[in-house]
């Protein structure tokens, strides 16, 4: 259990940040997801695709939290070179170097403008989840995951050329 936490914490946290949560809310949701996983396993429930399971639970909790939290950070629709709200007071130096890379900037602009489900598919893929794990996490079919990624890659490809 703790090993899985070790493996997934950062990945989950980055995904929850993409969903617009604060780091603190994200960390709490990860804790809660793992406590629920503990109960899930104690009840003798299936052990297949646990990574997908944890992402699904964390995502559901995150969406609930986001609805409950009226001041949640709005997703950036028009990317202007900054990331969502809570990062305004960060130390700019490493980031400045990062944003200097025009190509990454363009890709991020597209990623942040994607519809929620496409963005989730892409973020989860970026976090190393397999397609069937993403399908489990989002409650959609394997084909839908592939179609979503194909759509996003098409847009990313276009941004790259432009």
């Amino acid at each position: 259990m703790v090993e899985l936490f070790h493996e997934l914490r950062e990945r989950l946290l980055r995904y929850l940040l993409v969903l617009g949560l604060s780091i603190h809310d994200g960390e709490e949701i990860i804790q809660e997801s793992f406590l629920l996983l503990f109960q899930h396993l104690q009840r003798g429930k299936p052990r297949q695709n646990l990574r997908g399971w944890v992402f699904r639970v964390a995502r559901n909790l995150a969406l609930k939290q986001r609805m409950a939290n009226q001041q949640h950070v709005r997703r950036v629709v028009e990317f202007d070179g900054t990331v969502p709200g809570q990062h305004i007071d960060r130390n700019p130096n490493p980031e400045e170097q990062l944003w200097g890379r025009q190509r990454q900037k363009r890709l991020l602009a597209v990623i942040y403008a994607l519809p929620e489900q496409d963005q989730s598919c892409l973020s989860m893929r970026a976090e190393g989840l397999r397609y069937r794990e993403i399908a489990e996490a989002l409650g959609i079919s394997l084909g839908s995951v592939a179609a979503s990624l194909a759509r996003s890659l098409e847009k990313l490809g276009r941004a790259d050329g432009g």
Partner: protein
Amino acid sequence: MKEEHLHVHVKDEELLLYSDGEMRPGSSGDITAHLEFCTQCRARLKELENTLAEAGEAHRAVWAAELPTGAGWEALLKARLAELAAQKRENVWMPFARAVLAGSGRTAVLASVGIVLFFVVAIRWHGFETAGPIAASIGRGEKPDFRLTPGATVPVTQSEVCDAAAARTAPAVPVSLRRRVFEEYGVRPPQPDAYEVDFLITPELGGATDIRNLWPEPYQDTVWNAHVKDQLENRLHVMVCQGDVDLATAQRDISRDWIAAYRKYFHADRPVADSSSSNISTFRRSLPST
């Protein structure tokens, strides 16, 4: 016929599924054969994989500088899991109780009413805490994470620590440093009402205003909270100044495990009543300068 088939290129979705090992050789959707001779599809597959990799890199890089260390959260999860496991052991008797109650119809009905009433009262007493998220109902943060907060001191002697004229009161922790402490422990946004950004080794015992010596300590949530630690700090200060404990020992004990230190110096398993703390404070204030 075969020629015709060759000109129908593989769709991006299928290429992606293939690259994720979902279209195994021999399966109905196998496109291995097609890829073998279609350079265009192979190039497309490569392109898709590259774009995915780059998007992944960009995604991870955005938050690279933001993510706090997970050590504190891992320790917290372990504690919560242990607590959950303990709760489960305590609840083992419940199925037996139900089986006994099910023995007689009338008794069962009465018992059910009793159980419902019990839960209604219990939930009221707990201010609906039990209905909240699991994570919120389990205590946390009593002890600092050793890796984040090992303790740090300034060079100071016993007589300097005990010199009433130059009483070392806790310096104000700068707001920026406070914020860093909250961030380090993943408390976002900072919650100054719920936590005291406390010195692990109090300045009264030579503790430094340094991030390695500061952590967010809950005021009320736990048995071992900030007020209890204040009691220990006061007692240790008195003992150091009376020569009962040397300064280095006091610093070491409080930084290693302040709860164990409390038990040691108070000879008590649980926090003693608050009055003793105020007595000690009064006592300390009245100490003659040495």
